[in-house]
Every structure is written in C-alpha cells, then in structure tokens.
C-alpha cells in the first residue's frame, strides 16, 4: 500500500514539475505585464472571460492548477524536512490539505465562470 501511494505522489510531482517548467515562465511574464500596467488584450475582461467560459479553457487551466498544486505540496514537504522540521505527518497533512483546498477552489471558480 505504501508503495502504491508513493507512486501517485511521485507521478503528480514529476508531471507537475514538467508542466510548471514549461508553463510558469509565460504565466509569470503575464503577471509582470499586468503589474507594469501593460495589460495584454487577451487579459481584458471580455477576452479572458470568453476563454475561461469555454470548456477547453476550463480544462487547460484546471490541469495546470491541479498539477502545480500537488507538485508544490510534495516539494514543500521535502523542503520542510531539509530545513530540519521532522514532524512529517503534520507537514504532509498541512501541505496536502492546502493542495486539496486549492483543487476544490479551482474547480469551483472555473465552474462559476459563465457567460
């Protein structure tokens, strides 16, 4: 059972690591553009709303958020250990709970975005 669980966590970590390596530079660059006041056309309400209303937009965003959340959770658990925090059960339940909350919130907000 322990091995089976580890494979799931490891799989999410690896998939999330690959996806974030590919997608996050562009995502951070978009936030940077917004911060400078040069909001790109596709980030204006009309366009972003149409994109996230579509099923393709919802599915893409959900996959990115879901994998990023579980990737971050798994790594933050290891980081806590690296910094000398040895309460793994507490750390693991905290980070995985946060990832679960993030997953539910992502699904809920994506569901609520409608025309």
């Amino acid at each position, binding site marked *: 059972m322990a091995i089976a669980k580890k494979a799931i966590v490891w799989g999410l970590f690896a998939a999330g690591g690959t996806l974030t*390596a590919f997608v996050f*530079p562009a995502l*951070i660059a978009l*936030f940077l553009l917004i911060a400078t006041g040069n909001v*790109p*056309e596709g980030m204006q309400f009309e366009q972003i709303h149409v994109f996230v209303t579509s099923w393709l937009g919802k599915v893409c965003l959900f996959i990115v958020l879901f994998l990023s959340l579980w990737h*971050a959770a798994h790594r933050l658990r290891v980081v806590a250990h690296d910094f000398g925090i040895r309460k793994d059960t507490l750390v693991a339940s905290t980070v995985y709970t946060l990832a679960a909350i993030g997953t539910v919130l992502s699904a*809920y907000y994506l569901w609520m975005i409608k025309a």
Partner: protein
Amino acid sequence: MSRRPYIRPMSQTTWYMRNGRYKVYMLREMTSFLVGFYTFLTIYALATLASNSPQVWNSFLSSQQSTGMIALHGFALLYFLFYQTFPWFKLAPKAMPVQVGEKTLPGIYIVIGHYIVWAVLSAFIFWLAGVI
C-alpha cells in the same frame, strides 16, 4: 550493527551550507514556494473572474499594479528560469532516456527538443493572451 555506530555531527537546519552542490540544491528547492504562490495567485484571479463582472476583474488588475509587484514578478521570472525551467530541461535526458534500437539517443537532442517545445508553448500562451 556495530555496538558503537559512528554518527557524524550534522546540523539539521544548516547542513546544506557545507557544500556548493547542496547550496544549489536548496536554491532549486526554493522554487516550490514560487509554484505555490503563483498557483494561488491564479486561483485568486479566477475567483475575481468568477464574479462574472468586468468591474471586479478590473479592480483585480489594478490591485496587481505596483512597483513592488513589478520587482517581485521580475525576480520570480529570472529565479524560476534559472532554478526550475533550465535545470529541469537539463535533467530530462537522465530522467527519461530515449532508446533507439540498441542505443540511447544522445541527451543533447532531448534537451533541444524541450527548448523547442517550451518556445512553441510559450509563444502559444502569449498569442492566446494577445501579447503577440
């Protein structure tokens, strides 16, 4: 097991400061905070979009515009590139070697392939966002 096992004295909190490789490892590990931060920032953006109201979305956009945020995103972008994206592509041939017949494909092709996919995907995202 020996009766008097030798246990090296080792700090549990600053062990990585002894060695350059460990320091780089820890610097790479710190990108997990960035992944968590930007994921929740995106979820927050979706929450404002879920109001389905242009006013709420526009006030979110203005709330993100400050010198502090420019500095944060600029730093995060560089940090993420050098401690997550590039190292991840570099280790790809070791993590998933591609076998062709009896030999394995030279790692450099896998690394170049990653950079090409990254460029195309980033261009696609920028195109979707109306940047290019």
